[in-house]
């Protein structure tokens, strides 16, 4: 039982890490202030259990202040881990208090078995994926009735802006339009049939639409619902425009819209325009007004309901188009429209696509910040902290970065900037094909494969880059030399194949043979797979994982960030590259008993603007002596580090330093020390 500023918290372990205490302290202050928070704490320091323990305790003590915890995580395994930790906490509670558990927790995972229990509304804790809150299409079905007095936690939130953007972006290809055409025809036939058999149904719908979407409006005014960014408030106050009120008129309207889109896809060069430009064009060409467009999504939903269509999935194309219509007519800012006649890589094959891209992540997350009293954004890597409130447009009451207190320095970040022949190592575009660089990268991996036990994970900046390097290494026989030390496994674009390679990789680490996994930053492995203990004794980041900057969508987004948020392009790109690099290297350290080398193989990492964007818990272990190493120097340092780490490490070594008993925690001196762990910004 811990005392966190007067709040008694049941914590299901004998000991506690100092940073866990500090984390709970900040969390409690955030809840007290009924505000939002941004908290960075390294993975493997028990972030999840700290969050759960504190919020559950808070809920028990102040049931009127906080009545629900909504815990969002990204991947299925993450969600399942949270559920497991929660179960552990609940067992501990019933053991301590002797009462049977009256807390209701609910986990939704995998949409395939999605059924919305009415319990969702009564549950004390809900655990599910980001999409249930951030994707308006799902949030409307699942989450809109969740109480205002909820605490929302976004764990692993370092990529939350991309999730927001994805949920609001639409791509329309010729195939989409063809399928939409079929959908519209089906609708027309169904309407015709119903008209002959049951005309009253359509009349009733008409009458309801005249009265407008008042029902929804009432609900929102009384604050029962989470608002939907696709269904703006203004719509609710108005009746559906007359032009699309009857079913036949609406189908006619859809047809016209479809024809217009088809004509837009008949382009020979790239077109980029803003949403107002698009609306003006559509009015000029086919006389479609902004107003009926805005009601499109809602009108279609009503029609599908009236026609009693069971399988909505068949109508995904027309739903997509009508969602697009509503979005494009609702937001004059934050979106861009790009029509590309072909893929850049294959200019001879016509494959026109209309990209309707959201550039402003704050649009999708705005309702969440507005509705719920506390939203916690947390992850192992959120540096630099201040950028998240800027791009998500909210005011946090707390922002803190916690380091990992260590009794022994179990991580060893090294920046390798030169080959043994003094050639500067970098993945930058100009030297990307430079054979000297590729060869030196190869010798780095080869040397490491000889000295690092068990598993090594290496990340490349992109799949293409990895393919080219692997081919060059193969031709030069470098891979064969590496095979003398370890087996080689490589990520492929096929997820099933990669899963198998991963499992074999683990098997090879397990049986002592040792293996290397070549993988890609921003790929599935880098985002979702942990390499604990011997599964990853070293991680090598080849190059700085900048996003592919030639993409028009990215360019538009960078421009938007510059104009709207005063974030310079380079700052954002570097931030984005460094958060992915941090994710990659962070994969190997999963706790204080773990250890691993983190090798940044690019001289650009030594620069302050890059290094400074790494999480504090990594940054503070980069000494001046490890800034611009040659391959040989890195090997020497690594050998030394690995030998030290191979020594036995016991609980007693940690106690009092990075691991505390309850008594130790309560001493004045320790509390003073702990207060320095949180780094406020």
């Amino acid at each position: 039982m811990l005392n966190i500023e007067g709040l008694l918290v049941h914590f299901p372990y004998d000991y506690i890490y100092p940073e866990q205490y500090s984390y709970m302290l900040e969390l409690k202050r955030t809840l007290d202030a009924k505000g939002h928070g941004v908290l960075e704490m390294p993975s493997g320091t028990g972030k999840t259990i700290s969050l759960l323990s504190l919020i559950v305790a808070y809920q028990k003590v102040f049931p009127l202040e906080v009545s629900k915890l909504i815990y969002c995580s990204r991947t299925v395994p993450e969600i399942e881990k949270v559920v497991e930790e929660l179960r552990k906490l609940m067992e501990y509670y019933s053991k301590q208090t002797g009462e049977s558990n009256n807390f209701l927790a609910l986990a939704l995972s995998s949409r395939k078995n999605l059924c919305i229990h009415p319990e969702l509304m009564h549950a004390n804790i809900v655990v599910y994926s980001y999409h249930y809150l951030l994707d308006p299409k799902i949030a409307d079905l699942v989450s809109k009735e969740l109480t205002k007095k909820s605490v929302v936690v976004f764990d692993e939130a370092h990529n939350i802006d991309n999730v927001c953007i994805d949920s609001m972006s639409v791509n329309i290809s010729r195939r989409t339009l063809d399928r939409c055409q079929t959908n519209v025809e089906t609708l027309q036939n169904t309407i015709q049939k119903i008209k002959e058999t049951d005309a009253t149904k359509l009349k009733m719908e008409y009458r309801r639409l005249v009265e407008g979407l008042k029902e929804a409006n009432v609900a929102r005014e009384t604050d029962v619902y989470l608002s939907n960014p696709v269904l703006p408030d203004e719509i609710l106050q108005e009746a559906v425009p007359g032009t699309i009120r009857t079913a036949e008129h609406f189908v006619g309207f859809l047809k016209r819209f479809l024809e217009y889109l088809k004509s837009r896809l008949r382009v020979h060069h790239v077109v980029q325009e803003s949403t107002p430009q698009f609306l003006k064009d559509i009015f000029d060409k086919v006389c479609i007004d902004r107003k009926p467009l805005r009601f499109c999504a809602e009108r279609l939903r009503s029609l599908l309901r009236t026609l009693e269509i069971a399988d909505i999935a068949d109508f995904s194309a027309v739903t997509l188009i009508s969602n697009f219509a509503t979005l494009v007519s609702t937001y004059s800012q934050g979106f861009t429209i790009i029509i590309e006649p072909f893929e850049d890589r294959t200019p001879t094959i016509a494959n026109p696509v209309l990209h309707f891209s959201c550039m402003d992540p704050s649009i999708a997350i705005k309702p969440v910040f507005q509705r719920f009293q506390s939203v916690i954004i947390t992850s192992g890597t959120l540096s630099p902290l201040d950028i998240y409130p800027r791009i998500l447009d909210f005011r946090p009451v707390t922002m803190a970065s916690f380091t990992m207190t260590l009794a022994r320095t179990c991580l060893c970040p090294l920046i390798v900037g030169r080959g043994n022949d003094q050639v500067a190592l970098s993945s930058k575009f100009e030297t990307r094909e430079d054979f000297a660089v590729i060869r030196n990268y190869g010798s780095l991996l080869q040397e490491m494969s000889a000295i690092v036990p068990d598993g090594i994970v290496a990340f490349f900046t992109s799949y293409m880059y990895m393919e080219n390097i692997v081919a060059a290494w193969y031709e030069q026989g470098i891979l064969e030399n590496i095979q003398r030390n370890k087996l080689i496994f490589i990520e492929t674009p096929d997820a099933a194949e990669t899963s198998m390679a991963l499992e074999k990789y683990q098997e090879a680490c397990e049986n002592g043979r040792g293996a290397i996994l070549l993988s890609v930053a921003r790929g599935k492995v880098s985002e979702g797979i942990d390499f604990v203990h011997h599964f990853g004794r070293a991680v090598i980041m080849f190059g700085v994982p900048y996003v592919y900057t030639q993409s028009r969508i990215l360019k538009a987004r960078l421009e938007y960030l510059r104009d709207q948020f005063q974030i310079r392009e380079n700052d954002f790109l570097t931030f984005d590259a460094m958060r992915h690099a941090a994710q990659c290297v962070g994969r190997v350290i999963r706790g204080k008993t773990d250890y691993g080398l983190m090798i940044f193989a690019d001289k650009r990492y030594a620069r302050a603007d890059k290094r400074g964007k790494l999480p504090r818990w990594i940054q503070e272990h980069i000494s001046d002596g490890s800034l611009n190493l040659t391959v040989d120097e890195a090997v020497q340092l690594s050998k030394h580090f690995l030998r030290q780490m191979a020594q036995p490490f016991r609980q007693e070594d940690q106690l009092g330093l990075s691991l505390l008993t309850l008594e130790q925690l309560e001493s004045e001196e320790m509390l003073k020390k702990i207060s320095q762990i949180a780094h406020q910004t």
Partner: protein
Amino acid sequence: MHLIQTMAALSEEVLLVVKKVRQRKQDGTLYLMAERIAWGPEGKDRFTVSHLYADTRCQKISPDGKAKIQLQLVLHTGESTTFHFSNDSSALKDRDAAKELLQQLLPKFKKKANKELEEKNRMLQEDPVLFQLYKDLVVSQVISADEFWANRLGDTNHADPSLSNNKQEVGISGAFLADIRPQTDGCNGLRYNLTADIIESIFRTYPTVKEKYCENVPHNLTEKEFWTRFFQSHYFHRDRINTGTQDIFSECAKQDEQGLKSMVVQGVKNPLVDLLSLEDKTLDEGYGVCTTLPSTSNSNRSVKESSNSAIIKRFNHHSAMVLAAGSRKGETPANQASETSNTDGNSRDSVFFQPPVKKVKLKEAIEYEDLQRENRPKTVALNLKKSDRYAHGPVPLQSQQYTTSQDIINSVNYIQHEMVNYKPNLTQVLSSTTASSAIAALSSGGVLMQAATQQAINQMVPSEVQGELKHLYAAAGELLRHFWSCFPVNTPFMEEKVTKMKSNLERFQMTKLCPFQEKIQRQYLSTNLTGHLEEMLQTAYSKFHIWQTRRMLRKT
């Protein structure tokens, strides 16, 4: 080519006779017999060259197209003998016939010879003392190599049969294909060096190639043709994108692909590495920011790209196969896990009811071992005074009986307990005179502390002489061991051996010990370093003498 059934003089089976074979510029005839190969000059009925197959390490042949058609035998000793086939019309055929026959014969003997030789080699390498002994006794020809090994090998085999029988299955090097990097032979060709080990590795890793080999060799292809085709095949060079129809290995590639596919379809057992079920909800088609990932459809990939991805596939496949080949024998643990997960594999649809593998993995993933109080069995911490020494150099391991930590803790506790409860038994103490004489004897200079003078010798004698003395001791010890092991002498063989051993001892004394004695006498007149050695020899001699006189008595 004739098969001669017998040759009276030798009475051993002759398998092949090849005429017109030159050796050292002399014409003659080559005979391949059941256990050896021999060559005799023309017109004479004796062999001037004869090698047992067991002594032969390998054969080498001259490359095709060379003017001289030759076959070379390399012996284990490193010596070699070259035969030149000089029959104009059938030289190549003769050579190949000899080669093929040797190819079949050599491995049979090789295994046996190799094993022994390897064993001996290993023992000498691992044991520097033994190696020195070998040098002192065998190389300086005090005893013969056979005598030296006679009871050594036997010893080891009997001493630890479990060790040699339970030998761990050796896996396959991940880089075995790297060892056959082609070398150019200087005239527009490539040469691959294949050894039996590499072939074994290829067969174990790629069972389909072995199948092909069994199907085709030697009915359709010679062995050489088979391997030539293998190295030329698309199968070997995965980056080459041509699937020639006449390539016999294209089928292997297909089978591998199939195997790979079925592995992929089977899916992974550990749910935490399953990338397919990682994401809870992928966006519906049409939503999301379009990332410019290279499309995976083959139609719009360049040749280079698909060759690159073929290389990547090949590496994954190769590593998987090597891994599988290494664990093929002891495959059970992985399978068991899969069986348990299959038994209730249908329970996937609920988070709260998970298959055991998943449950275990999840539990592992959320466990913080250091946050929990330890309740493992107590262990004794390794206390390193000089951690540098531990970290840097390998320390030879002395075999000894290890006790578990618990044992050590128990005995320490026991001793502590004894100490606490110790009560002096005052009725049984020594008298004061005895006690003081005991103390005197144990003080430096006392009777029981004579060892102290040895230290003086230690310091007086230069280390080089000390080393020499050690070697002498080791050698003498070895010889004496042989000598004493003959008693009781109850077979004629033993009688012979003991006599021989006695003369060995005498020879040792003459050739080794006496020169050493003279040497130290020149330098250190007073010290008698070899006294004990001589004593030991003398004891042996007198034992021999007694035995001999007894035997004489018995005979008369």
